[in-house]
């Protein structure tokens, strides 16, 4: 079967000449359709860079990326909300761009916002929201894009454990319902194991897929379950090894 995303020998460098910094080196990766892949890696290892490339925001320095015509939605590491729009308008915007009828998009924005626990904050502007609330609006906005491929860059980083738990369930539900292909960056190994079909361990500068873990635990999984903890321990150890041996 054709994969949903094919990343083929991608390298990416920033800057020019002597100042050049190689952020990604020869990354190859395929995501199956409807796969939930999690990406863990040290800070600065190039995870965000990879997501940006897949979303076609920059062209890779070398290599190829294909998404086979599927649209991608990117949830940035920062919330990147539009400060001139209310929370609801921010969520509606991608639907406006798809020319969804006004009624329908208002209704859907409302549903998405209440799904992320912000039903009472539809009319708030980004600067009136807390860090975690902004991140949740951004999540709702990404879901409103109705893309087949969802690229998520630490979407739950600023959320408390309880909200995070609830959103894990919600995300899993939507993923199954919509048959999404998800590439999910996180620093939390447990979260990766809780959510992913596969956990990719990224090595540092230049970023490369150092290892991958297939997670065959049955769903629904629980973050606190011992199996998740055990696998997360393995992932964490592998990452530690990767980070510590590659430094010096």
């Amino acid at each position: 079967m054709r994969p949903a995303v094919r990343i083929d020998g991608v390298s990416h460098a920033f800057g020019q000449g002597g100042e050049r910094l190689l952020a990604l080196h020869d990354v190859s990766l395929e995501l199956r359709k409807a796969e939930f892949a999690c990406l863990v890696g040290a800070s600065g290892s190039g995870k965000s860079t990879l997501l940006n490339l897949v979303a076609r925001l920059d062209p890779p320095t070398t290599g190829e990326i294909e998404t086979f015509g599927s649209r991608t939605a990117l949830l940035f590491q920062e919330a990147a909300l539009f400060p001139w729009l209310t929370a609801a308008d921010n969520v509606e915007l991608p639907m406006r761009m798809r020319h969804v009828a006004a009624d329908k998009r208002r209704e859907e924005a409302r549903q998405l916002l209440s799904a992320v626990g912000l039903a009472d904050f539809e009319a708030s502007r980004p600067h009136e929201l807390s860090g975690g609330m902004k991140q949740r609006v951004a999540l709702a906005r990404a879901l409103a894009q109705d893309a087949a491929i969802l690229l998520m860059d630490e979407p739950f980083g600023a959320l408390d454990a309880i909200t995070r738990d609830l959103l894990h369930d919600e995300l899993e539900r939507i993923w199954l319902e919509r048959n999404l292909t998800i590439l999910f960056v996180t620093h939390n190994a447990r979260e990766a194991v809780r959510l992913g079909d596969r956990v990719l361990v990224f090595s540092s500068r230049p970023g490369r897929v150092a290892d991958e873990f297939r997670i065959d635990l049955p769903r629904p999984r629980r973050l606190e379950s011992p199996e998740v903890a055990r696998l997360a321990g393995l992932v964490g150890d592998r990452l530690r090894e990767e980070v510590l041996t590659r430094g010096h």
Partner: protein
Amino acid sequence: MATEPLRMPAYGAGELSVLDKLETTPRPARRFPLQVWRGAWPRLAAVAIALAVWQAVVLSGWRPDYLLPGPVPVLRRLAADLTQPVFYGAMAITLERALWGFGLAIALGSVVGAVVARNRVLRAAVGSLITGLQSMPSIAWFPLAILLFGLTEGAIGFVVLLGAAPAIANGLISGFDQIPPLLIRSGRAMGASRFQLFRHVLLPASLPAFIGGLKQGWAFAWRSLMAGELLVIISNHPSLGVRLQLARETADAEGLLAAMVVVLAIGMAVEILFSSVDGTVRRRRGLA
């Protein structure tokens, strides 16, 4: 996308009883006249101080009063002007031209600015031309204006347009330049088309800077108009530009100062208008 809402703690907008308690703390809801007063008193104070200084200079006898008349005769002259219907006719003509010309300049300036800002080649090609045009004095355009439009209102509009449009285009360009790239990327990641990116991201993001550009554009438009009005003199309704010029040409110090007061007042009124729009825009996005 039939996302059924999840049962999740819906964080309420705060407990009303507590809010009520807070309302009794010393932060009274401002009443409207008070608010107006808070906005107005510094302006009034500034005007009062300016008048006082002016009067003091005149009283000091630094220059004879036919060269530097005091505020009293100037304001008396202004009051006299204000009783004449011809004055209002003149004002109406001038303001109409200003609005017309400025409106056109906004349209042209925005389009040019928008097209130029986002296109690398065009920008390199005509970016500097815009500033070049902006620094061209109005009188240089007179012959061309007459060639193109004859002795019509169109000629005046042309001069105003060429005066203001470059400033507005430049304002928009520099507004676009200052948009945080993350917002643009965010728009692109949403799959926005070129036009959608423009309409939904670039324009609103650059709005505060654009308003600043409009303010500068207005000043250019107005100054160009004061010059351009000398192109076509309408009998019976000497426009403000003509009044200013006539007062100057006849060395009528009082008349000149009276006209200057009018120009200043209009300029300030326009600024207050822009400021209030600007304030609203900035408050909405948490910039103020």
